[in-house]
């Protein structure tokens, strides 16, 4: 319901090229990413996040049609050349707009901008949305209506590129603890959290033969907690675990992005 209503509120998304034409330069580039642009479910997350940005009066812009892929899936699947072509073109584009701060809603984009673009000459201040939201809540700029979740039991699945790769463990948990008093951990969490099965471009292909799907193994972890809501902070994790839940016929369980409130 809440989503339907919020869907109707028009939010104007500033486009980098338009601002540039007017001679303006925003503070942040909001990098939407492939899931934010094309995945039905994650588009809602991207929209929800722009609403938060608009309500906080953050000076940002998106690249719109100029945005392409960071090159992460290509690189993780072993196509170093394709990755570097993507990366060098992106760096070139960022340079032409004078971008030096990037906001991401995807851990994969976050990791590659933060850790791997510098090797190719693109150094930016990269901010993950979980970090951004946590900071805004801490500063009191963003207030959360606790009643929407109440005593719903929430658990959190650590995406590898936020957690193990970049040691962002506490920020998403802080946000969730603001949402609900019933936060529960899975037995494998933080640095020992299990993979969703989607990283390393595995999201786009069938898994190698084995006895079980990785997302099933993780979904079982989730179900063991008895949580009604599974939160995660990565589009690929969300996709994989949604699959696991469909498989288990537990469709009534809903997963929410941490940015939705």
């Amino acid at each position: 319901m809440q989503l339907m209503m919020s869907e109707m509120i028009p939010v104007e998304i500033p486009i980098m090229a338009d601002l540039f034409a007017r001679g303006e330069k925003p503070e942040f580039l909001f990098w939407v990413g492939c899931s934010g642009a094309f995945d039905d479910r994650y588009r809602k997350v991207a929209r929800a996040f722009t609403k938060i940005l608009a309500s906080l009066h953050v000076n940002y812009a998106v690249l719109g049609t100029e945005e392409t892929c960071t090159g992460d899936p290509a690189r993780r699947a072993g196509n170093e050349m394709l990755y570097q072509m993507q990366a060098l073109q992106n760096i070139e584009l960022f340079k032409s707009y004078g971008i030096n701060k990037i906001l991401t809603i995807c851990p994969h984009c976050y990791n590659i901008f933060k850790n791997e673009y510098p090797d190719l000459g693109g150094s930016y201040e990269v901010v993950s949305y979980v970090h951004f939201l946590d900071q805004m809540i801490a500063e009191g700029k963003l207030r959360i209506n606790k009643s929407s979740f109440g005593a719903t039991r929430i658990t959190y699945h650590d995406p590898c590129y936020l957690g193990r790769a970049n040691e962002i463990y506490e920020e998403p948990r802080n946000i969730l603890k603001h949402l609900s008093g019933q936060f529960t951990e899975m037995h494998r969490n933080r640095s020992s959290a299990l993979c969703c099965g989607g990283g390393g471009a595995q999201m786009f292909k069938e898994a190698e033969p084995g006895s079980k799907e990785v997302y099933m193994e993780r979904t079982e972890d989730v179900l063991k907690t008895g949580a009604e809501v599974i939160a995660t902070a990565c589009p690929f994790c969300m996709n994989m675990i949604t699959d696991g839940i469909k498989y288990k016929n537990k469709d009534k369980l809903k997963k929410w992005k941490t940015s939705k409130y």
Partner: protein
Amino acid sequence: MLKQLVFSLTLLATLGVFTYSTLRYIKFFRLTRAGFPVKNFGRRFCIMVKVAIGQTKIFRFPFVGLLHALVFWGFCVILFGSIEMIIDGLFGTEKALSLLGPFYNIIMGSGDIFALIIAVSILIFLVRRVFMHIKRFEGIEMKHVSHIDANIALSLILFLMISLLGMNTFYILQQKLISLYAGQIQAGITTSPTEAIVGFYPVSSYFAGLAGNTLTPLTAQVLYQTFWWCHILLIFLFANVLPYSKHFHVFMSVPNVFLSRLDPLGKLANMDNITREVKLMLYPGVSSQASPADAPVERFGVKDAEDVVWKTYFDSLACTECGRCTSVCPANITGKKLSPRKVMMDLRARMKEKGPKMIKIGKDFSDMR
């Protein structure tokens, strides 16, 4: 004098074999690729103190972690006694380092206690390995020899500790009995039996107490010497078995922690040769620094043992085949073939197989695999 001579020759042989093993590994390392430059010594030292000396990572598993830590710390303390034994053996001295005073008593006392703790821990480890069928110790890469290797290493440590305790026990008995007999002959002499004992041995004193005065001084002396030799020879043997065992971990893991990666775990290293090509393609004419067309083509990826960077080979030598990587590998626990431990073990085995031939025939040697 004869003892000194025999000891010196044994030590020389030990060092000789050990040098041979070390040089062999250095040659293997020369075959691998260049990796990252080692910088940030301060930060690396801190990590080493925390993870290697402080054993913080292994404490994620509280029970076996504590046992592992006790064995490690015990080894460090006992090493002090071993150094003293080498000095004694070379120069014919007796308890040469006792001039350190109270510090010596602390080290010897804790070494004595640690010897018992290590022996008990090793017994627990052996029981876990042999009888408990722990899943982590199984897997396609764990062949029969891998299990034998593990059990030999553990047994060697157990014998090391037994010989150390035996040595200390009979040392106490020897000193006690000698002063006792001396006291009987020259009645009225003031040395009490305990004063003649150099160092402090709480556990061995208990064992010595059990033996009482059933031995003659000569038997005690002979047994002390026997255990002394057993212990030092076992140390020499252990040191030379290690480079060919998975227990090379003992030597390699501390420096390996020092060399651990400091980058975020999510970062992949850039492939600069690809960057050259991509730049040539995107901006033709700009990058005239590109490699000439007749330069030999570098092999892409890791096809054989020599394609890894030296650090990866170092990792494979520090690997003790505990299986903690494979037991948390998402692919492995869902029945896929990938096993990180197998990658490490196979790399080490392949280098052992191909390395000597590459050294002999040249880097271009290929056995068509």
